[in-house]
């Protein structure tokens, strides 16, 4: 991306903030319900100086990242299992077909009962939501690997297992990373949602707590922050993608 196109990317964001500012200033919505962006940004900087608030961000970030990473491992392992033989493929696919259409949030109350109100129930929810796109992308990617690549490796003396892990899996890397990209966005949404529904800490909790107490300015701060977290983690993933896929065509 050139510096120029980055600037162009800023235009819609700027437009959105201007629209928000105009709406707030016009008095169409009462000031108590829709604060001005200037007030919100001011509040954001105040809060960023507060160690307690930083701990809230830390909590959300921890749940988000650990859930995403576990999902990455779980989705990839399931896909490798699925690609390894017909039997495991049938078994894993049956499992996926049952679980995929289920709204995972419906399992959340059960998770809270089993795992408690702390980190584990949130992380578990992130994992089961984010693992699916990673599984599907990895599985598709491994199925689409050119069989001649596998033949070339097998002729050179590679075992089936070696082929699976060191030929098919790296050949599917572009797909896996695309799946990871989708999963990262889902993780942001789900971690926030889980904290809004039942939590005593984290950005989602900050939002719901502010709403309950009618502190509207405080309500908008976590929204901006979860966006920023998603943006930052996404940029990190893109940088990693460029590094990992240096030899791959295009991309």
């Amino acid at each position, binding site marked *: 991306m050139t510096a120029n196109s980055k600037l162009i990317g800023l235009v819609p964001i700027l437009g959105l903030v201007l629209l928000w500012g105009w709406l707030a200033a016009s008095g169409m919505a009462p000031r108590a319900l829709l604060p001005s962006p200037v007030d919100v940004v001011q509040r954001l900087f105040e809060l960023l100086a507060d160690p307690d608030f930083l701990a809230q961000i830390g909590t959300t970030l921890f749940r988000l990242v650990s859930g995403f990473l576990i999902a990455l491992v779980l989705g990839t392992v399931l896909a490798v299992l699925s690609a390894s033989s017909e039997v495991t493929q049938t078994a894993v696919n049956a499992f996926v077909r049952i679980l995929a259409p289920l709204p995972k949030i419906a399992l959340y109350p059960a998770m809270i009962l089993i795992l408690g109100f702390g980190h584990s129930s949130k992380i578990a929810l992130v994992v089961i939501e984010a693992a699916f796109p990673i599984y599907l992308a990895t599985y598709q990617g491994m199925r689409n690997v050119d069989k001649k690549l596998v033949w070339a490796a*097998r002729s050179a*003396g590679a075992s089936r297992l070696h082929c699976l892990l060191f030929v098919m899996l790296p050949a599917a890397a572009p797909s896996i990373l695309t799946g990871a990209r989708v999963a990262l966005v889902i993780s942001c949404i789900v971690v926030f949602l889980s904290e809004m529904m039942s939590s005593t800490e984290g950005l989602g909790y900050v939002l719901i707590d502010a709403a309950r107490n009618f502190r509207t300015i405080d309500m908008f701060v976590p929204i901006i922050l979860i966006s920023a977290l998603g943006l930052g983690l996404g940029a990190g993933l893109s940088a990693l993608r460029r590094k990992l896929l*240096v030899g791959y065509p295009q991309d």
Partner: protein
Amino acid sequence: MIAIEHLSKRFKTAAGKDHLALSDINLELKSGEFVSIIGPSGCGKSTLLYMIGGFIPASEGRILIDGKPVAGPGPDRGPVFQEFALFAWKTVLQNIAYGLRLQGKSKAEAEARARVLLKMVGLERFANFYPKELSGGMKQRVAIARTLAYDPQTLLMDEPFGALDAHTRTHLQRDLLQIWEEHRKTVLFVTHSVEEAVYLSDRVIVMAAGPGRIDRIIPIELDRPRQRSELMFDRRYQEYITQIEGMIDAFETEAA
């Protein structure tokens, strides 16, 4: 020596019908022989090559290599594909060292040997490039070096120069012949080009389609080492080409 006995291959078509792709193939390849397979598309020439490679199973019959039946791929038979099939995530040097590393050689040892092969195919300056940074001809040189690295007795080449421009193709044919003269591996070479088949081979196997079968085997009795520029003026060379072109034309008229 490779012996192919009563080999057949049936496929299930999408409509669920049985399709006989190859019917009763019998063939013997002597050690160190250069044999080309040519024929109209759909005659199963690549399928035959893949079966010898152990990549797809036979429906009937068997393939014996030095008396032992083929049960799967192995480092005694090295494939080279039209699509190169290089590992995108490995550098040129790592691609070539791949088979040697699988044999348990140390990294240093494998890379030293890979450098020798890289020099042989004239790409020593490109050791640390990724395949995508190379031209088609260079990629195929890397693929050939990667296969030669684990020293197979037989090279199974599936239209290796089919995707290259005429100039590159000529260069690679010459270099392949030179490597073959030096190492005398058995080569089975599938191609669409009659000229290429005659120029390179000791024998040309002409296949026909529907079902795929061997129609004729033509020994090419031209002296070696061969020079393309000299062959151009050789009447026998021209006759071989005309004869085989005529046979393939006849199949295609039949089919159409």
